C-alpha cells in the first residue's frame, strides 16, 4: 500500500530530478521551444517542495492535488497547467483514501493522463508529454521499472516526430530530429516514481 509519505517522496524526488536536469530541459526547449522549460519547471517544483514541507497533506490524493495547484500557479508556461492537471486529476481520482494500492494508482494515473490529453487536445504521436506518459501508464502493470523504461523510450521516440501542438508545431518539419522537452520531463516524473518505489521496497 502507498501512503501520503510515499507520494511526498515521489514529488520531492521529482523536484530533485528537475533541479538536476533543468539545464538539459532548457537546452532541448531552445531547439524547438522558447528555451524556458527547465527554468519554469524548476520554479514550479521549488514551490511544490515548499508547499509539501510547510503543510504536509495527509492523503496521497491531497499530496498530488496540492502539488498540481502549485505547478499551475507558479510555472508560468504551458507545462504548468498540463502538469498541474496531470497531478490534480490523478489526485482527485485517488480520492480521500489514506493508503492506495498500486492498481489504484495505475487507474488514477490513467485518468490523469486522459485529463492532460483533453486539456491540450493532443494525442500520442503529436510530440508532446503524452508520448512518454501514455506508454508509461500502459507499462505500469508490469511494474514501476517497466514504466520508467517505457517513459524513457517514449521520450526518445519523439526525436523523429513532427510536432503538432504548441510552439514547436509552428516549426513544421524543422521540429523533426529533436527530442521533445515535455516528454523528457515526463520521463523524469515517471523515473522519480520508480526511484521512490524501489527505495521504499528496499531494492
Amino acid at each position, binding site marked *: 500500500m502507498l501512503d501520503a509519505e510515499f507520494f511526498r517522496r515521489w514529488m520531492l524526488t521529482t523536484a530533485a530530478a528537475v533541479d538536476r536536469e533543468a539545464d538539459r530541459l532548457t537546452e532541448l526547449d531552445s531547439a524547438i521551444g522558447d528555451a524556458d522549460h527547465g527554468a519554469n519547471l524548476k520554479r514550479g517544483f521549488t514551490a511544490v517542495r515548499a508547499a509539501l514541507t510547510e503543510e504536509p497533506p495527509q492523503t496521497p490524493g491531497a499530496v498530488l492535488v496540492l502539488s498540481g495547484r502549485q505547478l499551475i500557479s507558479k510555472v508560468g508556461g*504551458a507545462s504548468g497547467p498540463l502538469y498541474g492537471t496531470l497531478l490534480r486529476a490523478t489526485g482527485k481520482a485517488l480520492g480521500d483514501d489514506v493508503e492506495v494500492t498500486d492498481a489504484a494508482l495505475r487507474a488514477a494515473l490513467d485518468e490523469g493522463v486522459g485529463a492532460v490529453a483533453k486539456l491540450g487536445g493532443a494525442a500520442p504521436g503529436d510530440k508532446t508529454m503524452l508520448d512518454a506518459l501514455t506508454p508509461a501508464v500502459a507499462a505500469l502493470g508490469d511494474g514501476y521499472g517497466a514504466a520508467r523504461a517505457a517513459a524513457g523510450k517514449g521520450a526518445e521516440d519523439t526525436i523523429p516526430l513532427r510536432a503538432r501542438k504548441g510552439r514547436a508545431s509552428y516549426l513544421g518539419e524543422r521540429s523533426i530530429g529533436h527530442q521533445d522537452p515535455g516528454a523528457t520531463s515526463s520521463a523524469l516524473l515517471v523515473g522519480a516514481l520508480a526511484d521512490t518505489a524501489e527505495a521504499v521496497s528496499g531494492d
Partner: protein
Amino acid sequence: MTEGPLVGLVLVSHSAAVAESVAGMAVALAGVDTVAVEHAGGTADGGFGTDADRIAAAARAADRGAGVGLLVDLGSAVLTVKSLVEDEELPARARLLDAPFVEGAVAAVVTASTGADLDAVEAAAQEAYGYRKV
C-alpha cells in the same frame, strides 16, 4: 436590457503589455467606460507567461454579477484559463470565450456595454472569427 449589472471581461496574454494595451484599445474603440475590463498578462516576476493567481484575481475583479468572459491569446494563456475553469477556481459564471484576441475583445466590450448577457457577448466575440481580411 440596459438595467442591472454588465458582463465583465478579462484579457489574458503572455505579455503584460499586450493584455493591458488590448484592454485599453477595446475600451477606447467601444467608446464606453461602463464595462469592467481587467487584464492579466505576464508572470508575477514580470516575464512572459501566465500567472493563474493573477488571472483568478482579475476574474473576480471583473465580476459584477452578470458573468465574466475571458479572452486569451495562446499557449499557456489558453491552457491556464481552461484548467482554472475546469477546476472551478473562477467566479461561478466565468467562461473562456473562443475568439480572436484583439477583434474578439472589441466585439465583446461593445456587446457587453449594451447590457447583453454572457451568451450574447460570447457569440459576438466568436463572430469575430468570421471577419476575413483578404
